[in-house]
């Protein structure tokens, strides 16, 4: 079959017309798309191994090589697992509280303009206070150390969730709200089926930041509020200058965070399946 005018246009823009259109490339399997994950891991591990165990380029006191860290990881795994459990007892309630309060207040502040206008300076001021500096105040104010720890983690997660929820609600396209108005959608129906889904992309971005913040603050709060935990583990061995075990603790925390973020992304992709980019 001869080339049509349209074919010539396609050649001009670089589309190959000799290839039949139905011969579409098979989509690659997920495993081969994420081949970079193990590749980067292996490359990183190898480099670190060469820099420590093999050529001793880094100070062995601070940078323990894989030959020390890996056996320690196995030896201390029980303790780390126990630490995971007690950390979760702090993290989960604190994050849940931040999520509940952050989203509820964020929606209210986002929807009610006078409230927003009057509260914004205070929100900006308070969210800029480094949460770690509030530790002595928290310990003094709360009855127990664990309540103070909970508060520190809560506060770290609360501000990003509140901020993004307000931003998410404020930037909802007016046309969707008008559309809802023509259908007389109001009350809880409007809240749960219009406002929250419309603001969900922004809110979930905030939740993801908050999740990472809460992990950072976990270490801080377990300095005083715990006798076990992932943060406690790192802090405890850091005090004894056992940096091999500090590294073990870091790796374990990182693994836990990766798994949690993976689960969070699964949830996020499900909730945001409707967005154009997914």
């Amino acid at each position, binding site marked *: 079959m001869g080339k049509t005018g349209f074919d010539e246009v396609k050649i001009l823009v670089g589309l190959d017309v000799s290839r039949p259109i139905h011969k579409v490339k098979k989509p690659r399997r997920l495993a081969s798309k994420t081949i970079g994950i193990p590749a980067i891991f292996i490359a990183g591990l190898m480099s670190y191994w060469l820099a420590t165990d093999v050529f001793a380029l880094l100070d062995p006191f601070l940078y323990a090589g894989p030959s020390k860290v890996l056996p320690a990881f196995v030896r201390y795994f029980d303790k780390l697992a126990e630490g995971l459990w007690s950390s979760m007892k702090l993290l989960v309630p604190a994050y849940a509280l931040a999520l509940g309060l952050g989203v509820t207040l964020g929606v209210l502040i986002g929807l009610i303009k006078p409230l927003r206008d009057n509260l914004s300076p205070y929100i900006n001021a308070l969210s800029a206070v480094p949460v770690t500096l509030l530790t002595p105040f928290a310990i003094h104010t709360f009855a127990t150390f664990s309540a103070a720890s909970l508060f520190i983690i809560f506060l770290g997660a609360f501000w990003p969730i509140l901020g993004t929820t307000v931003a998410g609600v404020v930037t909802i*396209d007016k046309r*969707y709200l*008008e*559309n809802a*108005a*023509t*259908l007389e959608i109001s009350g809880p129906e409007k809240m749960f*089926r219009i406002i929250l889904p419309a603001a969900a992309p922004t809110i979930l971005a905030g939740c993801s930041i908050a999740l990472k913040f809460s992990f950072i603050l976990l270490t801080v709060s377990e300095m005083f509020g715990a006798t076990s935990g992932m943060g406690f583990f790192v802090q405890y061995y850091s005090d004894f200058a056992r940096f091999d075990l500090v590294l073990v603790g870091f790796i374990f925390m990182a693994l836990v965070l990766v798994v949690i973020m993976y689960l969070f992304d699964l949830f996020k992709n499900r909730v945001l399946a*409707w967005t154009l980019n997914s």
Partner: protein
Amino acid sequence: MTYCGGRPLNPDPPVLNVTVDNVYFSYDQKLILGGIDMRVLAGAFVCILGQSGCGKSTFLRLLAGLEQPTAGSILVDGRPVRKAGLDRGMVFQDYGLFPWMSAGENITIALKQKFKGLRKAERKAEALKKLREVELDESCFNKFPKELSGGMRQRCAIARAFAIDPPVLLMDEPFGALDAVTRARLQDLVLELWQKETKRRKTIFFVTHDVDEALLLATHIFVLGQSPGRIIYSHQFDGPKAVNRESMYADPNIVALRNSLIRIINEEILLKAGHQAGAAERNNGHGQTCR
């Protein structure tokens, strides 16, 4: 009458007439609409023609209750329009469907609002029926709007508008973003759905800038002039109209009407351009005197 599961959904819906009484609307100190009067009897298909920026969409928003007139009043069945409501369905050019809901959910949420007593299964059955009426198959029910073509999205929006069965239906250039073939098919579809209800046809307000579209669909045509928007021409079709697009232009009256509509709209554009040119000239002249 709309039936679901053998019982009427909405046994005796009213058919409403619309009165627009000397309506003015300004926004940011600028007069958008300047004194619009309209008496529309129930069951009319009103096409509002005009160039972009003449305020025809604003007029529809006033009818919908999304904006309030600066002066004058809009009465639907004798009652002033104060806010948006289910008695006036709306089909937007875009953003008509909630993108986070499937096509089916977009219809069922509207059914839930309108027919409070309906069970979930009944709502789904009714939504599927409405999708079939606009020639969308069942597989569309679970698809998100982003997974549908522009034409399919507008079909779904029309299905939703007819599902809540409003006595007044407002359509803001619903086919403006569609290709010519899809546009023609959807025009026929809207006509079919509107004509099917022989006893109590909806009163439809349809905003468009396409003269042929207005000629095909309308029982009444209003042309809006620009700055400020006001009615500069109106036409009412008396008696039955040839609504078939092939035979339509065999009627010399329709051809004459088409020509005069195009002429009126073009004159309005030229007039506006002339005003602008005149204003620019005056500004220039003023600049010269200063020098």
